[in-house]
C-alpha cells in the first residue's frame, strides 16, 4: 500500500516540493512508470520521521518536467536517471548529464519507454 498518496498536476510539482521542504520532509525517491503508450507516472516520495508522503504526477510523453533539484539537491541523480531511462527531460537540473548518466551512444533506444522486451544481445 502507498501511504498518503496525493495526485497533483505537472505545474504544481515545484510548489508542492517547496512546501514539503519547508515542512522538513526528506526526499526519498522519484519513481517513474510508464502508464500507457503516451503517459508516464512519476511518484515523488518524501519521508519525515519514517512516515512517507507521496505525490503522483502524470507526465504526457514528450513534455518536459520541472526539476526540483534546485529545491532538493538530492533529486539531481534520480532526475538524470529518469532522463536516461524514460526520455522525460527535466528543466532546470543543477547538474544535467543530458542522457549520459548511465548510457552511452551505443544504446539507441530509450530503454524503459516502450513496454517491449528488453534488448537481447546477439549471441
Amino acid at each position, binding site marked *: 500500500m502507498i501511504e498518503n498518496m496525493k495526485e497533483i498536476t505537472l505545474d504544481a510539482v515545484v510548489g508542492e516540493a517547496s512546501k514539503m521542504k519547508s515542512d522538513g520532509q526528506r526526499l526519498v525517491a522519484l519513481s517513474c512508470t510508464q502508464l500507457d503508450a503516451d503517459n508516464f507516472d512519476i511518484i515523488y516520495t518524501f519521508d519525515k520521521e519514517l512516515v512517507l508522503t507521496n505525490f503522483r504526477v502524470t507526465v504526457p510523453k514528450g513534455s518536459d518536467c520541472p526539476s526540483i533539484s534546485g529545491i532538493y539537491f538530492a533529486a539531481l541523480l534520480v532526475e538524470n536517471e529518469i532522463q536516461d531511462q524514460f526520455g522525460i527531460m527535466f528543466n532546470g537540473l543543477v547538474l544535467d548529464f543530458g542522457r549520459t548518466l*548511465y*548510457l*552511452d*551512444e*551505443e*544504446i539507441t*533506444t530509450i*530503454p524503459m519507454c516502450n513496454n517491449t522486451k*528488453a*534488448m*537481447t*544481445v546477439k*549471441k
Partner: protein
Amino acid sequence: MLKKFIDNSRAKSPWIMHFDCGSCNGCDIEVLACLTPMYDVERFGVVNVGNPKHADVLLVTGTVNPRNAKVLRNIYDQMPDPKGVIAIGACGLSGGIFRECYNVLGGIDKVIPVDIYVPGCPAKPEAIIDGVVAALAKFEGLKG
C-alpha cells in the same frame, strides 16, 4: 641461465590487477578476500597492483556494458605482454543473469581475450585461487 631464471620467475610472480566491470560486488569482495589472511594469495607471489602497467594478470568481474567496455579495452591494452586475463563469475563469463538487460553486452570475452574462466555466482576465493594457479600454468608454458 639468467633467461631461465626470468622464465621461471614469470610463474612465481604474477601481479594481478582487479577490474570491476560492472559486477554486483559479490565477486569483487571475493577477489579481495583472496588477498586477506585466510586465503593470502601472496603465497604464490601474487601482488595486487592498482595499475595495468604493472600487472601481469587481469582479473575481471562483472558484465560488460558499452561504457565500461572501452575502459576494459584500454586497461587491457596498457598491460605489457606477457599477460593473462581471468574472467570471474557468471557475469564475467557470459553476462550471467543479466545477459538480457539492455545495457549488457555479455561476458568479458566480447571485448578482450580471456585465458581462464572462473565460474560461480559469486566465485569462491578457492575458485579464484584455482583460476590464478591455472593462469600460472599458462605463464609456465611461456618459455623464451
